[in-house]
Every structure is written in C-alpha cells, then in structure tokens.
C-alpha cells in the first residue's frame, strides 16, 4: 500500500498503464534487426518512495473522512429517488449524503423483469396443476433440489400428474434451468419474491400446495396464457 501512486507502466504499456502513458508507449531501448517487433523496453517498476506511509495515510484518511462527514451530516435521499437511481437536487443548504442503501422490507427497489425469484406452480383453467410430471426439471436441475413422484390420472386427456412435487429452496441455486426445461409452462420463477427465512432445514422444502399458493402471495395470475397441447401462441411471446 502506498508503495507507488505514480505507478508507471508495468509491462509493455498495457494493463496497469496510465491512459497518457498508453498512447506514448513504453520507452524502447533497442529494436531487433531480424524481427522489428522484438524490442527491448525499459520497465518502470514501482518505487517505494514513501517508506513512512505517512503521505498515503494522510491521503486515505482524507478520502474516508470526507465520505464519513458527508454521510454523517448529510440528509438521506428520498427512498423513491434511491429506488429509481435518480439524482435529486438539494433544496436546502444541508447536502444529500451518498448512502445508496435501501431499507429493504419497508422500501423496495424495482426488480428487473427477468429476476428469478421464488418458484411457483401454474394452474390450468380448472385450477389443477399444469405439471404433467414429465421429469424434465429434476433431470436438468444441477442442484438436485426438485423431487417429483408421478401418479397416473385420466383427465383432459392428460395421463400423468405429480403425486408429490417438492423443491428444496436451500439447495436451489436459482439458475432457472427448470423453467427453461418445462415443456408446458408449469413452473415459473417470476414471482419476484425471495425464499423465506426458516428456522429448520425441513421448513425450506416447498410442497406442491405451497408452490401453487405462491401466485396468490405474489399477486400474479396463477393461470398460464398458454393453451394445453401446444395450440395457440407460445406463452413466452
């Protein structure tokens, strides 16, 4: 630390070089006659110019002190402005501080549309689960967190349904591959919710009924726009 603020360009003028130095390039000592691209250059090594570290310490303390004072005495920017990443102009002589923290449960920021949150299971028009227990998602799941035990049924021409559908949210790595793999839009991760904190590991396992209920909690439509059997527009469009 503090070893070198004037740095110099390390090897051949790229990497850690200063922008001005990069244009000038390294100091060339000699050029090979056989191959002009082979050159001997002067390597500027960082020098220990301040063995007492006092100058660097003073500089560093100045930076941290400035931030501390600004954040300690400044006013907090309004939560809405923070959430939108907006720069507001001060109306009084007390400046805004630079704290970007959002008080999470009370203030929420906008999540991107493709944010992968808690899983939810989609329903058909009659309220039954869309999953046909094809076993695509437990197969593709890299964390082996999905457990499906299929059962035979005979409804709407569908022959299979999950007797048991469980996701261990502690093992899930939130990769979203199950959603990609699902052929009938039965599992989605668009709830925008986080996995809930639990006190016992077993409580982190979400059952079929819990996964079906996530839609209600997240305020999302539990029914897919896709039609059964691949007719009509694909749900992703």
């Amino acid at each position: 630390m503090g070893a070198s603020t004037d740095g110099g360009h390390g090897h051949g003028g790229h990497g850690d070089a200063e922008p001005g130095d990069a244009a000038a390039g390294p100091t060339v000592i000699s050029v090979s006659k056989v191959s002009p691209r082979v050159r001997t250059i002067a390597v500027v090594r960082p020098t220990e110019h301040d063995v007492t570290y006092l100058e660097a310490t003073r500089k560093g303390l100045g930076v941290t002190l400035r931030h501390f004072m600004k954040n300690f005495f400044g006013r907090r920017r309004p939560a809405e402005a923070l959430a939108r990443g907006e720069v507001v102009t001060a109306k009084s002589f007390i400046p805004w501080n630079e704290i970007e923290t959002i008080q999470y449960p009370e203030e929420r920021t906008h999540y991107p549309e493709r944010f992968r949150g808690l899983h939810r299971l989609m329903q058909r028009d009659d309220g039954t689960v869309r999953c046909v227990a094809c076993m695509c998602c437990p197969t593709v799941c890299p964390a082996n967190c999905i457990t499906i035990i299929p059962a035979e049924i005979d409804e709407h021409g569908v022959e299979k349904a999950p007797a048991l559908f469980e996701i261990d949210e502690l093992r899930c790595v939130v990769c979203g591959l199950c959603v990609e793999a699902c052929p009938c839009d039965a599992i989605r991760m668009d709830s925008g919710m986080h996995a809930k904190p639990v006190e016992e590991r077993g409580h982190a396992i979400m059952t079929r009924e819990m996964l079906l209920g996530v839609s209600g909690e997240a305020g999302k439509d539990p029914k897919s726009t896709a039609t059964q059997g691949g007719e009509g527009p694909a749900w992703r469009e």
Partner: protein
Amino acid sequence: MKTLYTVLDHPATKWVFIVFALVMPLASLLTWAERRQSAMMQDRLGPNRAAPTFAPWLKLKGILHFVADAIKMISKEDFIPGNVHRGLFTLAPLLAIGPVLVAFAIIPFGPTIYPHALDGTLDPLALAQDPGGKDFLDSIRMQVASFDYGLIFYFAVLTLANYGGTLAGWASYNKWALLGGLRSSSQMMSYEVAMGLSLMGCFLLVGSLEPGYIVTAGASSKLSPSNPLNWLWLWQFPALILFTTASIAETKRAPFDIPEGEPEIIGYFVEYSGLRWGLFFLAEFIEIVFVAAVITTVFFGGWQVPFLDGDGFRFGGYMVETNGQLVSTGGFVLKVPHALVSALQVGAFGLKVILVCWFQLLVRWTLPRFRADQLMNLGWKLLLPLALAWTMVSALFKLAAMYFGWV
C-alpha cells in the same frame, strides 16, 4: 461521612467505577460504533434495526445491536475441540482481557475532588498553601493508583496480554492458530520496544512517569496546565505519531491485524466460539479504549478542560509557585463551582477518549493490512530508530531548556 469518603476513595471503588461506568459501556458501544462508522465511511447505513420484540419501534439507530450480540454470544454453543489443552484454552481469553482491565488503574479519569468544598468554589491558592485546611481534609482522587512508575506499569502489564494470544494459538491444537499466535507474539515484541521508547521524550520533558502528574503539570511551568498549548501534543508531536502507530499495532487491529487476519489468514482464536471468543473480541475493544485513554492522558491533557482551572475559567494570568505547587493566578476569571468543575473535567476526559477512539476506528477502516515484512520493517527499521532519535532530541531540548530557563 468520613467513612463514606474513605470508601469512595478506596481503589476498589474507583476501579469498579472506571470499569463499569467508562470502560465496559464504551467498549460495548464501540462494537456498534465501529460497524456504523465503517458503514458511513463506505456509503452504507450499517446495522440500524435491532429492537426488542416487545417494542419494535425502539431502534435507537441500532445501538441495541451490542445487546443482541451479547445475548447471541452467551447463548451460543461453547465448543471445545478435541485434543486442546483445556487449562490453557480456558486461561487464554482471561489472559487477554485481564491485564487490560488492570492497566486502567493508572489512568487519571478526573481531578481530585474535595467533598467539603463541593458546595462552593475551590481556591487553588489556599489548597497549595495549606493542603491540610478544613476544606481539604478529605479528598477523592479520581485515579485508582498513582505509582511513580505509572506508565512503566502499563507497558509491563500489557506485555502479559500477549500471552493471551500466544497461548490461545498454542493450546488450540491447530497449526493455523499456532502460526497466528506466533505472528501475534512477534508483532507485539517488535512494537512494544518502539512504543515504550516513543514516550521517553514525554517523560523527559515532564520529568515524571506518573500519568496523573503529566496531566496536572503540562510541558511548561510558565503556562497553566489547562492551556491546550501546554499539552504534550504540541511539544511532542513526533512522539504522538510514533506512539499512536505503535499502539494501534499493539491493539492488533488493521492495518496491523496480521495476528488475526480474520477473513484471509487464520488467526489465533480460530478454535474459539461463544463467549470465549467474545472475551477476545471485547479485549480488543477495551484495548482501543485503553490506548485512547493513554493518548488522551499523555498528549491531550487528560481530564483538563481548555482554560478551566480549579476555580473557574481563566484567561490570561500567570503561574505562581506556592509550597512546591504551581498555581495559576491573575487574569480574567469566570468563577465556576467546584462540583461543576469536577463534572466538566470528568466529562472532558470521556469526550477526549471517545474522539481518540473515533480516530482509531477511522484509521482501522482506511488502511489496508501491512504485509509481514512491511510490518517488521516499519517496526524495527523506522519506528525504533525514530523513537530513539526523538528521545535524543527531547533530551537535548530538555538540557537546553534547563540551561536557558525556557520551560
């Protein structure tokens, strides 16, 4: 009443007062202050939500986090790995925290209070001329023990605290903990020399090792000891920088946290959990308070409030020697009752300690960690020679000052 004053003046009473009224609250609050301050320096908010379940609105900017920490540490599993040396494993945290608490005995945290003069204004001139007068029959000295060898006692006792870290590493039956303990002892040895030497100039200038005397005497006998220009920060500024650097290394915190190096290189208390670990943690923060108290006492006039003498605020005036004691007289005096003077001075000591603690936290969250070789170079090749040189300069200055009558 006589008995009451004797009890109040008893070292045990004063020690309990200083530990439970100053050290423990300050050290506990520092655990919160460190996280909040570091957050403020890094554009974050830091912990600000801990509140009791029955009063969720009682957040107090997160101050209660230290209570939550304490409850957590007490209720956590106290795990002792197999193969550890049980006796030393248990002894090590106590060795880390005990010496620091003992060392507080030498710190003067307030002026001498004369209970019979509490209802009026203290007359320093009368006190100097007749210390046995009826107003001064009983006295409560706000310092647990005033040894002539005061600060040497601090160096000696703090050396014992090193055994805490070293033994913790050795007793843990863990190679990384052992290496951490070795790093701890090597660092302590390197910096204790420079730390002791850096204060030599102060001792020479003031002519005493006793912190209480350093506070009441000041550097020069021509100025009142309450004058900030008479405090040693001005006269011994290089010593202040040297001592601050060495003492931060003694507290084993960044940029000198090689012994612990919590996230990257494993430290000596890796096998500790629960309250045993908490003791190491608390000892670190108590050391911060202690270092702040020493810096305050030696360099920033201890409990002195600027321009506040025993009888009130005095501007101008001059020093008179009466019966071997220097008393400031004359000048413009704003009379202040003895009770208020004492309260102001104890408060000033607390405030100065808090400010120095704040500065230590600022340093801790600004500088990155030194490499082991940089650490040793800084200690042996820079601090030690500089401290020696400064001792020589101070000695020559003292000689010249005595010859020409400067101070």
